[in-house]
């Protein structure tokens, strides 16, 4: 099967050379642009990787600090510290009972005996 070209199709070598040059220059221009952009942004990826590493390090540091805080304030350490400083449990402290006698009478405010009468009329 053969394909027929349209009658007005320009097959002159000069035309094709010109087209080749034109498209090649566009391609080269795009390629150079791409390379230029890549060159300009070459630090972005290493920076990103660095930041990711820093983030991981900071997360680990934060976790370690959280654990260090937890280790520092464990109930055992607090109890040991309290005992070493002569503290005793509240429930073990010496207790004494004392009769405080009859308290002084309270000066309660006198009640106001004024009354209000309300009449309700239903209509």
């Amino acid at each position, binding site marked *: 099967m053969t394909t027929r070209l349209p009658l007005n199709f320009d097959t002159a070598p000069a035309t094709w050379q010109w087209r080749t040059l034109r498209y090649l220059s566009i391609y080269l221009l795009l390629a150079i642009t791409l390379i230029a952009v890549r060159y300009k942004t070459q630090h972005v990826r290493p920076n990103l990787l660095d930041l990711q590493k820093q983030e991981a390090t900071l997360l680990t540091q934060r976790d370690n600090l959280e654990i260090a805080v937890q280790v520092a304030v*464990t109930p055992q350490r607090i*109890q040991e510290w309290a005992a070493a400083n002569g503290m005793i449990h509240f*429930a073990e402290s010496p207790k004494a009972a004392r009769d405080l006698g009859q308290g002084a009478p309270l000066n309660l405010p006198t009640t106001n005996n004024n009354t209000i009468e309300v009449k309700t009329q239903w209509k």
Partner: protein
Amino acid sequence: MEVKIRNRSRVMQVLALAMFLSLVWAYAQLEWGVPHTVKRNVLQSRGSILASDGSVLARSVGGQRVYPQGVLAGQVVGMMGETDGLEGLEAAYNRSLQAGENLKLTIDPKTQAAAEAALAQGVKEHHGEYGSVVIIETLTGRVLAAASYPPFDPNNWRNYSAETRRNRPFLDTYEPGSTIKGLIVAAALNEGLTTPTTTYSTPMERYVGGRWGSTIHDAVAHPATLTTKEILRYSSNVGMSHLVENLTADKERAYLSNYGFGQDVQIPVVATATGRLQRPSEWTDLVRVTSAFGQGMSSTTLQLAAAYNTLANDGLYISPRLVEGTPASERREVIRPESARTIRGLLQAVIAEGISSAAGLKGYALAGKTGTSQVAVNGKYSDRLFDSVFAGFFPADAPRVTIAVTVHGATTNYHGSMLAAPIYKKIAASVISNWAAAPQQLPNP
């Protein structure tokens, strides 16, 4: 033409070599790089183990498993191998932890720390070998503390022996001794076989068990007659032998069984020991009597705490639980509420009238019972090896917490009232102080 073919074959050779080298590189990555990454990821994504207040007991940081609280509940938490839990909850809940789920326990760090500190002090002062404590929240059965001594730090688990890593309160079994008296008196009260004021003739020794019987002795000097209340106070074995005369072997065994002895503790997944009650066919008269003061049977500290919790909880047995959010697996009424209230008064009197300096706190109603049991060595009771035991609860009128304490192998002042009771007192002081409960002037129990 030949040159063209040769050139193409060169190109193909180079391509094949490149592909082969890329395969070698990929394999090397698999062999050296990936397993390490996988291990790190498995550890890093593993769920945390949390205490009831949210503080972290086990957590993964930087691809490593760390235990910030160190020895706190070390034996309960257990430890990790390369990628899997090896012991304790790390092993029991390995699958869910691997799936990234957190595990929240009922353990209260303050209570746990108080139990561990008091236990360590008691065992060291009395030159004991090891010990355990269990603390249960009365109404719910939540295990607030499960302490073992010697302590174990999962961060450096390779430095500890298997014995030290053992979760003793759940796994060690021993004869609970006279602590059982409180439970049996409760059963006799429940059956209407005795009252607090019923009087019994109580010489210091008595022969029981017929032809195959034996002579039982009392350790604490006491009057020739004792009431039920005094039998508990003086911990009289002879008195107990009278008290269970009308309690049939079947019934006594059924009560002990309902208190949880000789039964698996229904804590899901976690390893616990069953302890031992003799088979019904073995319950001779002698067994019936000796079981009434805790000989010839065995129990874990967890079982003992759960049994005493039944008295504290108006006669309702609740199986202990260790993980938040799981319901109690078992609930059953063992004795009636009024019987439970009566025995609570008697156990309060044991402390108030008998061992107030060892186990009592002025202004607070503590209740409990001591036990001292000889340890069987090669089938015979040793006269040098003892278990010092205490079980109790507080406040006696409306209990919130039940505690069981055991110390094994103490060589000085090994009696329950001298060793286990003061440990109970210290823990009670700490717990009550955390509650900030004001002292009260207490009526006589």
